């Protein structure tokens, strides 16, 4: 069951080959069997899952089922789930049993999906390796000595190891795409405003975006249809119709213009990864696409600009954690200042605290213009680069990450080198564009991801391009040895 696509699982459910309850039990058993090693889940919710599966089975029997009714899903622990701990990977929220559902969670439930549990992630979604989780790091299913990427590392590892057929992630600077690349799965970061952020615990509001992570573009398209859409509760969500992403997957790529940014293939990129991406480009040529060299001249500024903007927003977003209404509260505060400083120092991990401090500094008087405003101007330069490029080409192709999954602990003590592992993904968040990571080969038995970036709200085009590639390649079908059974 765990190697089947969502479409296959869905038709099996409809044909009564197995019930949603059986399917759910199958995945719960796999979590039971494998997750002690992987640590991809923070919370597993078997009782709730089985109850949802039973409801789904009733719907399937009555004939009121939707495409994903009865399909299990894992939610990143950044999404608030009513009655279930929603920790965001942080000690700060270890005690937070959300009183409400995030919009994305409510939509999955309305679609009849069955939540298996909440996946592990870096503390407050800040990290690129999952080593910043309060609940311990997640292991990469392809090599247990390596990181799964972050911050949606739990979702990526769980999908790759077949502990869930599909999962959600969130992406502020690459947190869906980079772990998707490291774990050999397919992940989509939608256009900013396409998926509601309501109930998604905020990291950096102008960059955060939730999206689907699955085994193939086809699977991702199905969940994307469920997650996407306007929400009155999120002022930054966009009120335009959601297309049927599955309907255009088989469109021909003949005449598709693919741009290759010359800046992405320069120094810093592992030559073996470059070779994978070039091979993928050739596959696209065979599919009828044309290749064009393009330039994103300000791309090298995306990491520094991001490390002004994201910390600035997070420093403010995380001020609500004060030990009063929710979250961690220190023991016996001697006064109000002590309550604040100790609750926050104990509740947040080191990386979160570093970013809060950097952001506080960026916004403080005397530095605001030099850093925050400057970074927002450079953000526009970066977005303009994309605007120009996407006027010439339909899709931009490049690597998702400069390397394959690195070893646990390798970059843990050097924040800056960790930041640079998101060098290809960050610019997309600054511009607010949609982008995917799609499996494109292996280097030394470790998956390589290619990144496809499209124009605003062109998710359907990206999914189409990814799906066509997956019709002529099988990288996405590979399953790590240890988790095949």
């Amino acid at each position, binding site marked *: 069951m765990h190697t089947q696509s969502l479409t296959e699982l869905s038709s099996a459910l409809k044909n009564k080959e197995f019930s949603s309850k059986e399917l759910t039990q199958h995945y719960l058993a796999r979590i039971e069997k494998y997750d002690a090693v992987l640590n991809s889940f923070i919370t597993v919710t078997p009782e709730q899952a089985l109850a949802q599966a039973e409801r789904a089975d009733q719907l399937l029997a009555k004939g009121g089922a939707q495409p994903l009714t009865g399909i299990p899903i894992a939610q990143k622990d950044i999404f608030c789930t009513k009655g279930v701990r929603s920790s965001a990977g942080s000690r700060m929220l270890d005690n937070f*049993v959300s*009183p409400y559902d995030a919009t994305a969670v409510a939509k999955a439930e309305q679609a009849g999906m069955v939540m298996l549990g909440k996946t592990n992630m870096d503390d407050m979604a800040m990290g690129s390796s999952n080593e910043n989780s309060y609940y311990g790091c997640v292991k990469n299913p392809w090599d247990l000595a390596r990181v799964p990427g972050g911050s949606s590392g739990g979702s990526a590892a769980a999908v790759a190891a077949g502990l869930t057929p599909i999962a959600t992630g969130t992406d502020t600077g690459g947190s869906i795409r980079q772990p998707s690349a490291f774990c050999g799965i397919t992940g989509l970061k939608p256009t900013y*405003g396409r998926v509601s952020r309501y109930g998604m615990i905020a990291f950096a509001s*102008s960059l955060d975006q939730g999206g689907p992570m699955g085994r193939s573009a086809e699977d991702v398209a199905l969940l994307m249809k469920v997650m996407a859409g306007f929400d*009155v509760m999120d*002022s*930054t969500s966009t*009120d335009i119709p959601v297309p049927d992403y599955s309907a255009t997957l088989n469109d021909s790529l003949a005449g598709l213009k693919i741009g290759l940014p010359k800046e992405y293939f320069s120094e810093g990129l592992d030559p073996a990864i470059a070779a994978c991406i070039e091979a993928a480009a050739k596959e696209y040529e065979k599919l009828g696409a044309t290749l064009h060299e393009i330039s994103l001249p*300000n791309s090298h*500024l995306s*990491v*520094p*600009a991001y*490390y*002004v903007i994201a910390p600035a927003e997070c*420093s403010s977003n995380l*001020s609500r954690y*004060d*030990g*009063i*209404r*929710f979250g*961690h*509260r220190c023991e016996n*505060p*001697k*006064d*109000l*200042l*002590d*309550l604040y*400083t100790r609750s*926050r*120092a104990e509740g947040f991990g*080191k990386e979160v*605290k*570093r970013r*809060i*401090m*950097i952001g*506080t*500094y960026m916004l*403080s008087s005397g530095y605001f213009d*030099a850093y925050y*405003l*400057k970074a*927002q*101007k*450079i*953000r*526009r*330069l970066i*977005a303009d680069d994309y605007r120009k490029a996407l006027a010439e080409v339909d899709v931009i192709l490049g690597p998702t990450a400069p390397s394959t999954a690195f070893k646990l602990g390798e970059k843990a003590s050097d*924040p*800056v080198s960790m930041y640079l592992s998101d060098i290809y993904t960050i610019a997309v*968040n*600054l*511009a*607010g564009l949609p982008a995917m990571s799609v499996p494109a080969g292996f280097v030394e038995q470790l998956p390589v991801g290619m990144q496809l970036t499209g124009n*605003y709200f062109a998710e359907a085009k990206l999914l189409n391009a990814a799906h066509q590639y997956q019709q002529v390649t099988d990288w996405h079908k590979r399953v790590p040895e240890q988790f095949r059974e």
Partner: protein
Amino acid sequence: MSPEEVKKIAHLARLAILSEEELAAYTRNLSDIMHLIEQLKAVDTTGVEPMPHPLDATQRLRPDEITESDQHQLLQSVAPFATVESLYLVPQVIEE
């Protein structure tokens, strides 16, 4: 960035720094990050409009309707400390 600056920022952000080792580590890490950020200063951004939002949209307005009912018991069930008469409790706020 100096240890004094780090202390000042930590206070502004209401984060306790508990030991000298911790302070030294933050000072080192934050200085490295600042070094990365300093690259921005060399860029000429004359005439460029800042971009606080990825999309060029404007604020939607909500009708003035009461849509929320009293849920204080549920909402206070996640409070990390006792409430009294449905008030959250904090160490005495000294009226300045």
